[in-house]
């Protein structure tokens, strides 16, 4: 058995190890109380309550979708963890909660999750299986189903948090025509512009994935956000060092990043 690191992947291996160590350390320190990170506000997340409140007043449903991705996708996982919060709030206020998705692997997870959110809110009987809707496993068929649903049900809040490709604008425009308050988030850099242009609040890239921890707010979760910021600092420092070397006409550091 001969074991060797893939060529040009040494850097990745190092960063992989470093990131795990940093995450552990920051969770440990936060739990112990040595560092007390204060997370900046995410207006999009704070607006969730406002959106659900508005739906309650108007007596119209809330539509939530995690988009195209399967359950292994980080954006979908993030979308699902925010979904817990929203579903529970909707159950408490008695608002109809419509959940749509495209990938079949999301189906059992989402149903389980939403059902238990209703149970936790003390209203297990109000969970309606027909409100969790698989629309199709083909991209634009899913978009068609969603845009029809949004306008038919006249949703009061349109929450698009997950993995979106070209259908982003279709969903957002349908929400606009239904007169809904819209909160969207994705990490796809091609689709963020459309969300920025059409939605009331947009969780840009990182903000979406961190939002789950932001809502939970436990020391462990906040600890990982702190670790994430340390990783960002490492990225910034690496870039600055690289730029300085490069400006001095030295390729060494640039090549080091590719070993």
């Amino acid at each position, binding site marked *: 058995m001969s074991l060797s690191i893939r060529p040009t*992947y040494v850097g990745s291996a190092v960063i992989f190890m470093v990131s795990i160590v940093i995450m552990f350390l920051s969770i440990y320190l936060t739990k112990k109380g040595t560092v007390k990170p204060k997370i900046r506000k995410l207006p999009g997340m704070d607006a969730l309550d406002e959106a659900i409140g508005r739906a309650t007043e108007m007596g119209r449903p809330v539509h939530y979708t995690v988009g195209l991705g399967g359950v292994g996708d980080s954006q979908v*996982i993030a979308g699902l963890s925010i979904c817990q919060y929203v579903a529970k709030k909707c159950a408490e206020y008695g608002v109809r909660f419509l959940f749509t998705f495209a990938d079949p692997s999301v*189906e059992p997870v989402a149903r*389980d999750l939403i059902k238990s959110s209703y149970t936790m809110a003390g209203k297990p009987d109000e969970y309606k299986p027909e409100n969790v*809707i698989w629309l199709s496993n083909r991209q634009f068929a899913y978009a068609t189903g969603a845009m029809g649903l949004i306008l038919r049900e006249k949703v009061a809040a349109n929450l698009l948090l997950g993995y979106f490709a070209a259908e982003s604008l279709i969903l957002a425009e349908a929400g606009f025509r239904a007169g809904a308050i819209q909160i969207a988030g994705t990490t796809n850099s091609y689709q963020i512009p459309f969300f920025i*242009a059409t939605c009331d609040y947009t969780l840009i890239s990182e903000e979406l994935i961190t939002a789950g921890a932001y809502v939970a707010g436990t020391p462990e979760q906040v600890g990982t956000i702190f670790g994430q910021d340390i990783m960002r600092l490492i990225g910034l420092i690496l870039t600055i060092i690289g730029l300085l070397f490069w400006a001095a006409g030295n390729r060494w550091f640039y090549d080091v990043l590719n070993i």
Partner: protein
Amino acid sequence: MSIVIRRYIPWILAVILTFFMALDTLVLEKNINAYAEAIRKAQAIIGTHAVIISITLFTRIHGRRVIKDPKRIESWILLICLWIPLIWGLGRYAFYGVKPTVEPSIQQVFSAIVSPGDSTIYSILVFFIASAAYRAFRARSMEAAILLIAGSICMLGNAPVGELIWSGFVPLKDWINNVWVRAEARVIIISGLLATLALYVRILLGYERGWMGRGE
């Protein structure tokens, strides 16, 4: 005991597989790489089964609607368009070995319904992009003004008519595209990875359990 079967084993399974697959991308070793490749294919096979749940529930929802109100044409149509090609395609595949990609009647369903549906809904975006531009590109604030200016320049630089109006649109568009759009896309990519790393750590340590439902 039951919580072990319900939660801990799936979680440990996910952790082990994550580390194994991560090892595969980092390391060159014949056996590990071969196993990883096989596992990836096995995952594709296993994942396909989820569609059974979706199709069953889909049929149940629309079946109930039809029973409640037999005049609901759209649910009838959905059930017909779903089940007839599915059964026909599977039957032809199972008994005659004709792949669905070459089975003529499936291809006709594709080009009569699926393909026009795909391209129509994709192309309906042109209307939505126009109305989104009309609503969003308004100089209400500094940010909106930047959005407006960058967007309009790129639009005019892209169409031949922009060059007729002012020849400066094209170099300006190239500049925005290659400097600002590039910087933005790069940051979105890096920041997406940072957050994903943190999320994965949360999952591996079991703080983030959304993917298992909440259950008990």
